[in-house]
């Protein structure tokens, strides 16, 4: 039996952590643990019987107050494969629509014995409010406003690690509307903790202002730099991640015209040749074809899409398992 195994993570538990709100407080050891456990969860997903009993008797509630299908289904599937009971709540048709406050909704779910609440909210910081007030239920942030989307970033880190082996010293270029992207923000912190170098590239109006001006900032500046010239930024990159451009922002005048954006910041085959050979090209989707990526690069093959979806479920299984098992989880 000669299955190669990555070096074992240095820790085996996320305890006493009960919440995953962002990656800005994650250590490298914690990231290694989540990515290592994700690898094990992939094995479960490859079986014909995709069910293990480890979260039997646990109740997970998904509270999505902003529409999303992919992320919610991914969490739901992850919970069900681990045998948790998963209950889905959405904004429409719930008491949130009748004006109930987020806090009261959270307290009600906790009173219904939710062990974990997976939540998405249009406002940055909303999960932190619940995390402060809920003493028993854990919280996973599945996206809050422009702030954070940790499970998506962990999925991206996992995909990069599978492709590259290790993230230590790798160069990752994130292109586009970084300032408004919660996926980018969480990726920046996760990549930095994992030892990668991050280069942010795009129109200055769409990059984090404090980084551009070199002010004191919450960003991990030792590993993060800004370069508005894509041809320079992409040079020698191991990973190229193009973010979705929100066309409504363009009309608001915050950005150059579509033509200018495409000319200066579109990832093209010619530009990809400046990156490392076999560099990984990523896009968190949904994609505006022919804007962020040249059409010739935009069509992912079915296998790549399937892989990313599988990795997404496995990452969320790892998170749920690590948060809901262990001595603290039952306290």
């Amino acid at each position, binding site marked *: 039996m000669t299955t190669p195994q990555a070096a074992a993570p240095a820790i085996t*538990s996320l305890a006493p952590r009960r919440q995953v709100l962002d990656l800005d407080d994650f250590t490298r050891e914690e990231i290694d643990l989540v990515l290592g456990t994700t690898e094990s969860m992939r094995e479960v997903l490859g079986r014909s019987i995709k069910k*293990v009993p*480890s979260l039997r008797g646990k109740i997970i509630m998904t509270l999505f107050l902003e529409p999303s299908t992919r992320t919610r289904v991914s969490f739901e599937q992850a919970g069900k494969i681990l045998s948790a009971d998963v209950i889905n709540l959405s904004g429409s048709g719930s008491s949130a629509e009748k004006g109930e406050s987020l806090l009261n909704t959270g307290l009600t779910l906790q009173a219904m014995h939710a062990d974990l609440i997976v939540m998405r909210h249009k406002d940055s910081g909303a999960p932190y409010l619940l995390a402060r007030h809920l003493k028993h239920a854990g919280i996973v942030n599945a996206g809050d406003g422009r702030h954070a989307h940790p499970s998506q970033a962990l999925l991206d880190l996992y995909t990069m690690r599978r492709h590259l082996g290790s993230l230590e010293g790798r160069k990752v270029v994130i292109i586009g509307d970084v300032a408004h992207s919660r996926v980018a923000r969480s990726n920046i912190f996760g990549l930095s903790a994992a030892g990668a170098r991050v280069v942010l590239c795009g129109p200055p109006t769409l990059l984090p202002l404090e980084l551009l001006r070199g002010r004191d900032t919450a960003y991990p500046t030792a590993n993060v730099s800004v370069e508005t010239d894509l041809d320079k930024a992409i040079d020698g990159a191991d990973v190229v991640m193009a973010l979705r451009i929100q066309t409504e922002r363009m009309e608001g005048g915050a950005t150059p015209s579509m033509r200018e954006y495409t000319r200066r910041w579109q990832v093209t085959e010619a530009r990809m040749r400046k990156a490392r050979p076999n560099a990984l090209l990523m896009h968190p989707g949904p994609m505006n074809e022919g804007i962020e990526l040249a059409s010739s690069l935009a069509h992912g093959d079915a296998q790549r899409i399937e892989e990313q979806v599988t990795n997404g479920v496995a990452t969320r299984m790892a998170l749920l*398992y690590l948060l809901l098992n*262990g001595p603290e989880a*039952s306290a």
Partner: protein
Amino acid sequence: MASEKLLMTADDVRRALVRIAHQIVERNRGTDGLVLMGLLRRGVPLAQRIADAIKTFEGVDVPVGGLDINLYRDDLTSRPQPLVRPTQLPVPIAGKTIVLVDDVLYTGRTVRAALDALVDLGRAHQVQLAVLVDRGHRELPIRADYVGKNVPTSLTEEIQVRVREIDQREEVVLVDHERRVLA
């Protein structure tokens, strides 16, 4: 410092595993349909040794796999979390005779979890259990088919099986935690 008593040397371990290898082949009248599934982590190298022994006297390669049972435990809330590792299945197990291999048989709860894990991987024809050390104190109606050494123990003692692949040395020791408390 806890007191350690040597129970088996590397040679003792080797002899016990060779004997178990003979017993497995004898009892199953050959190696047809046989699969050795080591319980992660230390059961895997032990299963590999048994397979190597069978190879020397039968000339047959018996498939060896590794079973991770941590997603099937019933005691995760009462102890530190172990790392979940991927299960490695060398062949589909449907219709096969599976020999589970573990280092120590104690309460039987690990074996219970292993049986559950195995059921999810397919319907084996038969499941048998081989352990290097049986230390007693069963909490479930489970017994081993092949035992390297029976060691009566007290509840304050711990059996540590060390294998070259993981621990850089090979031996079985008895550690008495009671004495450590007193010392």
